[in-house]
């Protein structure tokens, strides 16, 4: 590895040095070639017409977007709805456990955290299939219940929206646990003690001290969970059956089964725009919320 000798003599933080450019260049080029350029090409493809046999031509066919929204509007709504439900479930399930480990875990803190992160060691798809096995009609949970007559006739969990949301929640829970735990772990217990000494009740101390201080962790967890959850198609495919498909399944099918590349590209862009706008609006709302909270104090 050679470095620009002259540039390096400039030392740290000097604008004239060539070194940082040489260091950034390989990654930058790679990301340009395999991230930025593909996105631009997809934007272009999303406005084209044609088919796989005759080729695609640029016709600035904006209808791809309106067609996509018109045809698959319900799938978009379902994806956002499932994403919201699963993200909320993840946050609600993860917070109490992260709280207990951070404040009461004692010496076994990292062991408990490790146990919560165990699913990370199994492939995501395999975990989803194992979850399907748990939920299947004759599986290890529903099978015995059914044999003992504890389930009503025709009771299913698989092929329902609930199955998909539960799978998404199961699959992405570790994403939520980690940032919330990190935020809670950082809180100095003495701050909570101080609030208690000042006659704040247990609930009040939590609501006014712990919860606001841990909000950045929740925010990070929500963003890290919501985007991949709403764009997921594996859970809907494995657990949801044909009636609970999400927009990810549609995009996949339009690419691979129908070779409708322009429409699929338009759908992908619409999804990205929705998710990024959603995350942005959420971040702003939460930012405004905590500012309000600070002003009230």
């Amino acid at each position, binding site marked *: 590895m050679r*470095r620009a*000798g002259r540039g390096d003599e400039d030392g*740290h*933080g*000097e*604008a004239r040095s060539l*070194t*940082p*450019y040489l*260091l*950034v260049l*390989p*990654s*930058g080029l*790679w*990301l*340009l070639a*395999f*991230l*930025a350029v*593909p*996105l631009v*090409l*997809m934007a272009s493809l999303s406005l084209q017409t044609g088919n796989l046999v005759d080729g695609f031509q640029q016709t600035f066919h904006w209808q791809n977007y309106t067609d996509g929204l018109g045809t698959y509007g319900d799938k978009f709504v379902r994806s956002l709805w499932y994403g919201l439900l699963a993200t909320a479930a993840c946050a609600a399930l993860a917070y*109490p*456990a992260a*709280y207990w480990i951070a404040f*009461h875990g004692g010496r076994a803190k990292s062991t*408990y955290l*490790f*146990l*919560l992160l*165990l*699913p990370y*060691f*199994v*492939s*995501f*798809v*395999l*975990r989803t*299939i*194992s979850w399907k*096995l*748990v939920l*299947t009609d004759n599986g290890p949970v529903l*099978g015995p219940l059914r044999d003992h007559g504890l389930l009503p006739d025709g009771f299913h969990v698989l092929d329902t929206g609930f199955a998909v949301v539960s799978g998404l929640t*199961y699959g992405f*829970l570790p994403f939520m646990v980690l940032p919330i735990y990190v935020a809670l772990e950082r809180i100095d217990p003495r701050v909570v003690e101080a609030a208690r000494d000042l006659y704040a*009740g247990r609930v009040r101390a939590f609501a006014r001290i712990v919860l606001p201080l841990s909000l950045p962790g929740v925010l990070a967890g929500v963003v890290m969970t919501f985007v991949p959850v709403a764009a*997921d*198609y*594996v859970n809907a*495919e494995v657990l949801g059956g044909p009636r609970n498909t999400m927009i*990810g399944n549609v*995009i996949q099918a339009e*690419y691979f089964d129908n070779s409708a590349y322009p429409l699929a590209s338009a759908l*992908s862009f619409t*999804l*990205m725009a929705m998710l990024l706008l959603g995350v942005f609006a959420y971040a702003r709302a939460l930012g405004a919320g905590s500012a309000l909270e600070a002003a009230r104090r």
Partner: protein
Amino acid sequence: MTGAPARTGPRVLRVYTLALIAWLVLPIAVMVLFGFNDTRSRQNFRWEGFTLKWYTHLFDKADLTTAVLNSLTIALFSTAISTVLGTLAGLALGRYRFRGRGAATLLLLMAIACPELVMGASLLSMFVTFGLPRGYPTVLAAHVMFSVAFVAVTVRARAAGLDPSVDEAARDLGAGPWTRFRLVTLPMLRPGVAAGALLAFVLSIDDVVITGFTGGATVTFPLWIYGSTRTGTPPQVNVMGTLIFMVGIVIAVVLARRAARRR
């Protein structure tokens, strides 16, 4: 509010946490268990008795073995490439101020925030536009793309916290740029580089979305499993999953022990 209520809260939370862990572990236990299932059909959903035959016939399905090998080699190559590239970029972003730093950071954030589905779809759009055949090289290129950003961000955090005077001291003592990088900077960056590499490996070996869009006929372990869901997943998959799980746990525990001892 003294005495009993003060102790009830944590105790309830403790039970809750253990229940949550049990829920998370349940499907893993099912995966391990059904690797020992003496099933005769392609459906591995009902317990039919204990057997070890799937362990002795682990490599019977040639395409599954190929898929696992593909996953391993792609993860190794993409980790190696993205760790080198990402470390250099992370060092530049953490240590230097330069024009274009904002743009480079934005590119990294984009790679982290963009939904995998959109990245995969856009890569497919590019390969279609240019008529590029999809296969092993395109998968590798894609994996390096999404890994490099995570490595760079991890290393950047470490590089930003380094004391620049150490490097200056080495220069004053007559060390050239390459010597300083090798003997001073790199050892100090090491925890960041190791964390980034680990992240890159895990992301690559578990990826299904982007690989599905860029793979063509090249199949990895997660893709093979995904493809098998319609016809029935054979028990060998459970066995592979169990073995990977065990190896991962052992590596994690060893790494954690070493980190704890160093502290």
